[in-house]
């Protein structure tokens, strides 16, 4: 793995009941870039995410990640809940936020691994536990402000508009000081204005927070607007990898999206 590489997926394959969802897929995400993973419906994009974050165990191939300490680790050797410790965090396609909790509490869940105090310390409200909580709350408020939803900090998630929910999910990923963020369709269900807002947020996250972003998206305007590089896949196979322009001109990609033109 080269020095400026952040994530390297090598020869990844996974099959469900004989059907190959991902077929010898390889791609590399560089440090500090926004990398888009695109493809028609059922191409296996979310499956790639699930393999990287260890929700699925790949049948074949490995996933090298340069973790928050700059050490290269093979993510396949990790259990699902350990992945975030390496500095890699994800969002979900169908928003996985907790309805009975407020916005800020949902964000605080993102900082779960940052806490050191356990049940006894928090139960007795030791000074250390209190300080820790205050620190994380301040961080959460800052992120809410960055996302421009701080006025809703104490509102419940239930009943919030889609645009807000997408932002909260994004905010939750930021809470763990991640190095790489995996976003599964960050613009799905957003209107034009909200999508533009999201594009700007993603760029700001890359530039100000210094995070690398790998995203899956159907909304091509967003992809073309924010992505530094793109990988297009179809039926689990790579069609092409390159800059937006290169992908737009790629014959295989055009075919996969528009069908064969005779």
């Amino acid at each position: 793995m080269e020095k400026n590489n952040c994530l390297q997926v090598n020869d990844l394959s996974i099959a469900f009941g004989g059907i190959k969802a991902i077929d010898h897929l390889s791609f590399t995400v560089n440090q500090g870039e926004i990398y888009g993973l695109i493809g028609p419906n059922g191409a296996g994009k979310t499956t790639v995410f699930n393999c990287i974050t260890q929700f699925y165990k790949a049948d074949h191939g490995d996933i090298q990640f340069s973790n928050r300490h700059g050490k290269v680790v093979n993510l396949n050797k990790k259990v699902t809940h350990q992945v975030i410790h390496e500095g890699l965090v994800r969002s979900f396609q169908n928003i996985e936020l907790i309805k009975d909790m407020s916005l800020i509490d949902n964000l605080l869940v993102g900082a779960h691994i940052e806490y050191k105090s356990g049940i006894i310390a928090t139960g007795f409200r030791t000074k250390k536990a209190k300080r820790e909580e205050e620190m994380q709350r301040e961080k959460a408020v800052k992120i809410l402000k960055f996302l421009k939803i701080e006025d809703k900090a104490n509102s419940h998630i239930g009943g919030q508009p889609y645009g807000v929910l997408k932002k909260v999910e994004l905010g939750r990923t930021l809470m763990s000081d991640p190095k790489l963020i995996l976003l599964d369709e960050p613009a799905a269900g957003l209107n034009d204005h909200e999508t533009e807002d999201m594009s700007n947020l993603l760029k700001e996250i890359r530039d100000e927070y210094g995070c690398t972003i790998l995203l899956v998206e159907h909304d091509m305007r967003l992809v073309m607007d924010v992505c530094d590089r793109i990988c297009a896949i179809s039926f689990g196979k790579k069609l092409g990898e390159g800059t937006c322009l290169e992908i737009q001109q790629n014959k295989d990609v055009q075919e996969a999206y528009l069908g064969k033109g005779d």
Partner: protein
Amino acid sequence: MRKSGEERREIDGSKRGGSDVNGIEKKEKGLKVIEKKPPYKAYLLFGLFLILLPTAQKMGLIGSATITVLGTVIFYAIVGIGMNVLLGYSGLISLGTAGFMGMGAYMSAYLTADLNLPFLLSIVVSVSIPLVIGLVIGLISLRLAGYYLAIATLAVSEIFRQVFIEFEAVTNGFSGKNAAYPKLFGIIQFDRQLTFIFMVAVLIGLMIFTYNFIHSRTGRALLTMRGSEAAAQAMGINLLRYKLTAFGIATAYAAIGGVLYVHFIRFAYPSGWNLMLSLQILAVIVIGGMQTIEGPILGSFIVFGVPELILKQLPVIGNVDGLAYVFTGVLIVVVIMFYPNGMIRLGNDIKKLWKKGRKHGKEQLPASE
């Protein structure tokens, strides 16, 4: 990402300051408002009220039997608070609660009466052993789908029942086991009144302890796990560990409840720790209100207090066998179907309705004129 305190202040103040001259103070408040203040005062006041009850009995305001019933309500409330961490916050069901309670009760009775161990040490041992057994059962069943815990604990409580009958050296079998009121530090001998007050202290202490850890990382992790296991895992929450934590809390509180039971009622009988008791404890939180600290207390009063204090006084039907079960059973079904947040929200909802009604009334007044 982490900026120094002062920088942070600037960022925070920039928006909230606005038109206010005293921008800095306002901003400080803005940060604090976000964390709700713990209701310690209300809990302590409630405790104070409970402590006054035995005195009220001495003054002849309430009957002696009422104190016994209220004592029952208190230790079942403790068991309920623990169970709520499991069911309310984690969405898991245990049907072994009565078994763990019974184990705590028998152990403490045996340790204090037969082995002459100090009361406080006996509490520690009588809670630790059920806790360890509970954790082993949890470790096996919680790796699987959530409903396996209910079945595993159901099977284990059958084993416990057999143990309570057969281990006569400890439990005294079918004749039942006697215990005394607690004796603290070997000198302070509690009477019924002091035991009652001691139980109130334990209840209030556990309410505060539970409130604290629920409104922290632990509680959030449990709620997240309940809402979305995928999100929980992605955020680094070890599912097995937190399910075990919740089950451990429920088990430990059940054992504490059992210890208090045996030193307040001063008697334990093997068939008392049956499935019906476990179900009644589930009813306590379902009826009282899940995901609250206060709910189980109200629930305990409804499930264990109301049948004894009110239903039994009713003419004709008061003497009918099974009335308490029917009452609780129907309440469970009705609450789950129509009022899933539990009775503890009743006061709030009535207030809301009242306000709405008044607003509505005011709006209509001009029209009617």
